[in-house]
C-alpha cells in the first residue's frame, strides 16, 4: 500500500497538469482560412451564416412537411375516399 502511494505523491508534486495557467496568455494559432473569410468585412459573413442556418432549417421543415402530406394523400387514395377538391 505504502509502496504504491509514495511514487504517486511524488508524481503529483512534480508534474504540472497543464503547461499554462488559465490566466496566462493562451497561445493561439494564426487565423485559419475559414476564419479569414468569416472575419472579413467586419464579421458580416457570420450574420450571413446565421441567416442561412435558419433558412436551411425552414427548408428542411418544408420538405418534411411535404413528405408527410404525400403519405397522408396516399392513405386517402388507398382508402378510396373520393376527392372532390377540384384539384
Amino acid at each position, binding site marked *: 500500500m505504502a509502496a504504491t502511494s509514495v511514487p504517486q505523491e511524488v508524481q503529483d508534486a512534480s508534474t504540472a497538469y497543464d503547461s499554462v495557467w488559465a490566466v496566462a496568455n*493562451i497561445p*493561439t*494559432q*494564426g*487565423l485559419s482560412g475559414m*476564419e479569414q473569410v*468569416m*472575419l472579413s*468585412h*467586419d*464579421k*458580416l459573413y*457570420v*450574420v450571413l*451564416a*446565421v*441567416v442561412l*442556418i*435558419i433558412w436551411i*432549417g*425552414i427548408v428542411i*421543415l418544408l420538405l418534411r*412537411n411535404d413528405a*408527410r*402530406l404525400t403519405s*397522408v394523400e396516399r*392513405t*386517402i387514395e388507398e*382508402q378510396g*375516399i373520393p376527392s372532390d377538391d377540384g384539384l
Partner: protein
Amino acid sequence: MINLRRYTLIRNVILLWMSVVLCAAFLLGIPKINILEHTARNLYFHVPMWFTMMAAVFVSAYHSFQVLRSGDIVRDIRALQAARIGAFFGVLGLLTGIVWSKFTWYVGTDVWWNFDPRQSMVSLQLLIYGAYFVLRGALDDPSKRARIAAVYNLFAATTTPFLLYVIPRQMDSLHPGAEGNPAFSEITHPIMRLVFYPAIIGFIGMFWILYTQRVRMALIKHRVTHDPEL
C-alpha cells in the same frame, strides 16, 4: 376547426412583416462594438429563436393542460405540434449560437464547443423534449398516449425557464446576461431595439404559421387514419 380566412390573413401579414425585418436587419446602421462588429446583427436572429421557443413551450404546455382537463385529442395534436416547432426553433437557436460564438468567443482557436453553461443547459432542455417525442412513439393507444404525454410535457415545460434562463445566469459563462457580463437591457442601442422587437414578433409569427400548418395536416391524418401522430 381552424379559421382559414384568419389564418391566411395573419400568414400574409407575418410574411410581409418578416421581409421588412430582414431588410432592416441588414440595411440599418448599428454602433460599432469591439469583437462583436457586424455579428451584433445576430441579435435579430439568434435571440428571437429562444423567445420563439419559449412561446412555443407555453402554447404546448397550455394544450397539454387542456388534454388533462378534457381528454380532447385535438388538444394533444396542438401540444405535440407546438412542441415540435418549439424544439425546431431551439435547435436553430443552438446552431446559430455555436456559429456566433465561434467567431467571437473562440477566434484564433479550434474550439466550436466548450461546454459553456448556457449552451450545455439548452442542449439538456432539447434532450428533454427529444424524450417527449420518443415517449409518444412508444405508446400505441391515442387517448392513453395523449394523457401520458401531456403529463411528461408539463414536466418538460416546467424545466424550460430554469435551464434556459435561471441556472445559466448563476454560473460563469461567456454568454451575455451571466455573472459579470452585461445583459441586453443595459447596452443595446435604440436603433437595434427598433429591429429586435419586431424580429421577435416576426419569428413568433413564423412559429404560428408553421405550427398551424402542421396542426391542419395532423387533423387530416387523424380523420383518415384515426391516428394524429405526425
